[in-house]
């Protein structure tokens, strides 16, 4: 989907900042969202992701910069005249209206008002879409959280908005239901073809559902890209830490070649590194952090079974073992790397029996597993 970046952008932020008094909730955000894309704003609370969403909806006006919707500058256009709809975190269903009236609300505001037959047909169609047929006359507060969520979705989708905004829509649901709704939302987005912009603090949610993820920190965009790119090529330590788990080994740069550099980890191990953070210019003597994903570190009892191109091979003591179902996470300690975590898939444990606490094993990884990032 994101491949079609040539498609015209539906939402554009150009140098947008938002100040609440002295506090900058959003600083200099520039961003283009393609029509039909599923984009997530991901970050901890207070990072400005909700403010960004609310500026698209029209609940906040930018202090600086411009917001464009489908080519139109909307800075001064009030929320009720913007062709977007929002699914609120609390759903914000009208408690004094039944499901039908909630869902039809947007259509009833149109002038001229569509005929009752047309509205009935539209309501039936979206309720069908969210699998809530037959619930028309229900009171919303009689329904379960998942059902309320669907009503909120139907209420927004019936208007066929140019962009659907979702503000942590799944936060109130329990884990299993959340997983189901994630898949459902994704399917729904493919079917209706509407641009979805989701705000979440749940990285798993953002990575699994979106075409692109926009990671934010303290009002700024720190990286934006496809989920796999963010995971495999984080631009900074912050992103590497926020998206998935990572080991961080502080080190010093040695000899620098054209596309690689020798890095010596503080604990002793030295290895060639050929992956770097964004716009990094390394010079001899620089301090860096090496990020290595736990699943990239292989553990074995026999050192010779490690791949030939493993640039790091260290004897490590197993400190702790956490069984995670399909994986086992080990916390290890070694002279060359210090303390680090490694993730072993269950399958490899069928070859070698699980390692015991206190056991000495050999840990190794390839050069590609390590990425040098700025040492904040």
């Amino acid at each position, binding site marked *: 989907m994101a491949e079609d970046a040539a498609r015209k952008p539906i939402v554009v932020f150009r140098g947008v900042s938002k100040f609440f008094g002295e506090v900058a909730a959003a600083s200099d955000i520039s961003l283009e969202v393609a029509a039909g894309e599923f984009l997530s704003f991901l970050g901890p609370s207070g990072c400005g992701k909700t403010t960004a969403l609310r500026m698209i*909806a029209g*609940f906040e006006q930018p202090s600086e910069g411009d917001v464009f919707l489908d080519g139109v500058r909307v800075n001064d256009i*009030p*929320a009720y005249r913007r062709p*977007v709809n*929002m699914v609120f975190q609390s759903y914000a269903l*009208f408690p004094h209206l039944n499901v039908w009236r909630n869902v039809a*609300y947007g259509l009833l*505001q149109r002038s001229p008002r569509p005929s009752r037959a047309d509205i009935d047909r539209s309501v039936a169609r979206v309720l069908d879409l969210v699998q809530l047929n037959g619930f028309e006359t229900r009171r919303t507060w009689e329904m379960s959280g998942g059902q309320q969520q669907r009503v909120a979705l139907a209420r927004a989708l019936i208007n066929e908005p140019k962009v659907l905004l979702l503000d942590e829509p799944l936060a109130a649901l329990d884990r299993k239901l959340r997983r189901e709704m994630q898949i459902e939302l994704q399917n729904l987005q493919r079917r209706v073809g509407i641009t979805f912009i989701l705000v979440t603090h749940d990285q798993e949610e953002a990575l699994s559902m979106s075409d692109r993820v926009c990671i934010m920190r303290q009002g700024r965009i720190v990286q934006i890209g496809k989920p796999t790119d963010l995971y495999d090529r984080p631009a900074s330590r912050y992103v590497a830490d926020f998206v998935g788990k990572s080991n961080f080994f502080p080190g010093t740069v040695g000899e620098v070649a054209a596309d690689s550099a020798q890095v010596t980890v503080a604990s002793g191990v030295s290895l060639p590194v050929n992956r770097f953070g964004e716009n990094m210019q390394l010079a001899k003597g620089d301090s860096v952090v090496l990020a290595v994903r736990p699943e990239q570190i292989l553990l074995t009892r026999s050192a010779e079974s490690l791949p030939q191109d493993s640039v790091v091979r260290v004897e490590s003591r197993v400190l702790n073992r956490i069984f995670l179902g399909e994986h086992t996470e080990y916390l290890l300690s070694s002279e060359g790397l210090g303390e680090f975590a490694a993730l072993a898939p269950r399958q490899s444990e069928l070859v070698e029996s699980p390692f015991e606490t206190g056991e000495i094993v050999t840990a190794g990884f390839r050069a590609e597993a390590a990425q040098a990032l700025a040492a904040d």
Partner: protein
Amino acid sequence: MRWYAAAIYVFLYLPIALIVIFSFNAGKYAMDWQGFSVEWYFKAFANPFALKALRTSLVVGLWTAVLATSLGTLAALGLERMSGWPRRASDGLIYIAIMVPGVVIGIATLIAFVTAFNLANPFLEGLFGDAAPRLAMGLPTVIGAHVLFNLAVVILIVRSRLAGLDRSLIEASEDLYATPLGTFRQVVLPMLAPAILASFLLSFTFSFEDFIIAFFVSGPDSTLPIYIFSSIRRGITPEVNAIGSVVLAVSLTLLIMAQFLLRDRTGSRGARGDQA
């Protein structure tokens, strides 16, 4: 301890109970039980003076309720948009208005009305000559004074409901293309309706049963409480008890209705199924 509590309740409610009991007395004198009868209720409702006073009280109560509720609701909506020290100042003034004793409001409004009338009447005479309307105490002055003290009650009730109103409901309505007026009509007003209705019932009740303020500012037409007070001078009859019991029944019913309306029901969105 339990006896102590019981004694307090007896102390609180025995006088009221006595009025109700003796309103059913067949005898001529209030405290001389002659057997059960409802004849005094018929007598009271056939008494033209009592009926006239009742009518006056109903008119005053209804006008007070209408004016205090509409003005108070508007004021509450306006206050909601204020912030900082003007907000705190007006909040404080509202609470003070509720705590001011009735007798003070009575004297204050009496003096205010008399002063205003004394200024306005010569002016009106100069303007219209002999045909000039003469401003004097009457139903409008009672209504005015009643609106004054009920306004604060209405503002407090409506504002507390307004404060509990989920902001995101208003945003959701705007998000679904409703204009500010449309949002007010379709979301804010329906959500406030119970509080507004309760305010209406309460201000009607407070006006209907008020004696002190009406005593100061009423003109030739007496309200029901004033009528009761003046007829007591001719001795407490079971008829007075009957009228008092009716006032009690009306007030109590309206207060219970208002209380019922102010219970928070749909406010708890999470608690689903509790009414299913």
